[in-house]
């Protein structure tokens, strides 16, 4: 039976945030191998902030992402390999390198109002014969008509699919639904949905997206990802099974992989604690969480206060440098007794 949607696993990309970008060759081989064996059709791998993300600002990778991609390419037999690229962080040239290593899908991510900075990268992906996916991050920050306008730009550059990306895990079910529906109605290309679980809605929003016509869905084993994590694919697969939605993947193999391959390497469980919940509530980029915790420790201000302040300032994805800025300012304020 044909699958109702194509599953893209991003354990080795979004999950990289949760591991502070320290995946090893062995872990990559084990995870990519298990995903491939379970029938997952697309596996994304790169630094959490995309190609070229290894930096002071986002954290240095323990291993070169290109070497890790080569390990994944070596073990997968059926799955396509994908990479993420954020224009402004990585460059179009990076795609040539990963194309040669074996990546077949280029996912080009911009803030949901800045799609036009992705033109050269989407075109480059197509020139290289890759599948191009447009990734509109922080989609909760704009209303559906604006999102449609931006998605149309990505489609016009050649994107084969455009994603509604809930980077902050801030979308409620109706909000996720109306965004996917608006894109579905306006675009000719495929529509995708990428969830974060900060409001405990990752699986529910993904199901709503499928109902509205999304044909590409992201998730991670055990939800391993930024903030409270992504949509756990073993749960999504199990729920879809119960609902009679064909997924094309083996839910039992995914449960095994989540339990036996990913859980043992998780630095902590993907729980929705106060800070994670506040990411969703205040609409803050999920990968800020661990950076905010480190800044909290260094500058002696509570993590949740940093996150709330970042939300107030309408900081967007990639502005991790603002976390230190906010922490320093809050520390100075509390020293003066302003709080």
């Amino acid at each position: 039976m044909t699958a109702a949607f194509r599953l893209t696993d991003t354990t080795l990309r979004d999950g990289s945030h949760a591991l502070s970008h320290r995946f090893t060759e062995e872990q990559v081989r084990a995870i990519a191998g298990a995903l491939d064996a379970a029938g997952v059709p697309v596996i994304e791998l790169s630094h959490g902030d995309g190609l070229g993300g290894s930096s002071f600002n986002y954290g240095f990778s323990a291993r070169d992402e290109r070497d890790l991609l080569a390990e994944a390419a070596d073990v997968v037999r059926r799955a396509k390999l994908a990479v993420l690229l954020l224009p402004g962080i990585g460059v179009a040239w990076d795609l040539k390198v990963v194309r040669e290593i074996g990546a077949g899908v280029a996912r080009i991510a911009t803030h949901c109002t800045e799609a036009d900075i992705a033109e050269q990268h989407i075109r480059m992906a197509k020139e290289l014969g890759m599948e191009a996916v447009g990734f509109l991050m922080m989609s909760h920050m704009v209303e559906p008509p604006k999102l449609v306008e931006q998605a149309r730009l990505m489609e016009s550059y050649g994107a084969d699919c455009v994603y509604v990306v809930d980077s902050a895990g801030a979308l409620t079910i109706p909000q996720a639904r109306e965004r996917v529906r608006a894109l579905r109605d306006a675009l000719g290309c495929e529509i995708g949905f990428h969830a974060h679980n900060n409001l405990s809605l990752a699986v529910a929003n993904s199901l709503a997206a499928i109902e509205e016509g999304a044909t590409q869905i992201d998730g991670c084993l055990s939800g391993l990802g930024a903030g409270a994590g992504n949509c756990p694919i073993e749960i999504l697969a199990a729920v879809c099974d119960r609902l009679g939605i064909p997924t094309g993947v083996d839910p039992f193999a995914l449960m095994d992989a989540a339990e036996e391959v990913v859980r043992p390497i998780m630095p902590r469980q993907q729980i929705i604690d106060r800070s994670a919940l506040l990411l969703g509530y205040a609409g803050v980029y999920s990968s800020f969480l661990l950076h905010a915790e480190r800044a909290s420790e260094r500058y002696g201000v509570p993590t949740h206060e940093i996150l709330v302040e970042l939300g107030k300032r309408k900081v967007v994805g990639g502005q991790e440098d603002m976390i230190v800025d906010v922490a320093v300012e809050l520390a100075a304020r509390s020293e003066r007794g302003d709080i």
Partner: protein
Amino acid sequence: MERVPCAVVGTGNIGTDLMEKLRRSEVLELRAMVGIDPQSEGLAKARSYGIEATHDGIDWLLAHTDGIRLVFEATSAKIHARHAPLLRDAGLVAIDLTPAAVGPAVVPPVNLRQHLEEPNVNMITCGGQATAPIVAAVSRVTRVPYAEIVSTVASRSAGPGTRQNIDEFTQRTARGLESIGGAEHGKAIIILNPAEPPIVMRNTVYCALPGGADRDAVAASIQEMVTEVASYVPGYRLKSPPLFEDGSFRTPAGEVPARVIALLEVEGAGDYLPRYAGNLDIMTASAVRVAETLAVERLREGIPP
């Protein structure tokens, strides 16, 4: 001192902001605004100031060079690539604000003195003007194995040229951190933020520090450089004193035990461009500083124009 005649080619936002700044210069005299669009607001403004304004483009300028010695190019990389040889043959010194990079990149307090005789100098990028001086301030005190910058600008202040070729910004800025800043490896990141009201340009500079670096000297050198840049970009300031963080950072140049972080804000002067557009203001303010320095020094040294 008699003021040195100059012209601005390109009458959009940047060219018009240059005009406003040049009207205040005690060293330069703006003789002509050169555009191609008769409806241009910049040209109308120039006329209202009594400045010669033409929409006949570079051909007009080449036919009316009398006395003009310096030309600001505020068009596009493609157009400047075509203009550059024409200006050079006409004996005009070009200060290029486009990404054409025909001539060497200059940052006034760091390397301008090495390029006083060039017929064409380039202003790199807004991020480069804002951050290369800080890297240079650190590298004059200690080795900088790796430097990284993050420039965040208001979406509204990023024009179509920047948007369509954002890689050019990151790559050229990164090279500037190396060739001008003195870092062994450089990386640049740019973020566009659409918040309303628009945010003021932000820059964060991270420099890797080798063990035993003299932190007081690094901090003092950064402060001194900020004062120097602020002398020609009044809205350029540190948000907090330089921050030193210990850790083990696996940079592309090897592991380092510490880093220094400079958090900078650049608010525009609000001449023609809005105040939040510090990224554009730092380009025009730096270009005027470059031109003033060239005017004074070339004349003093007897270098032909």
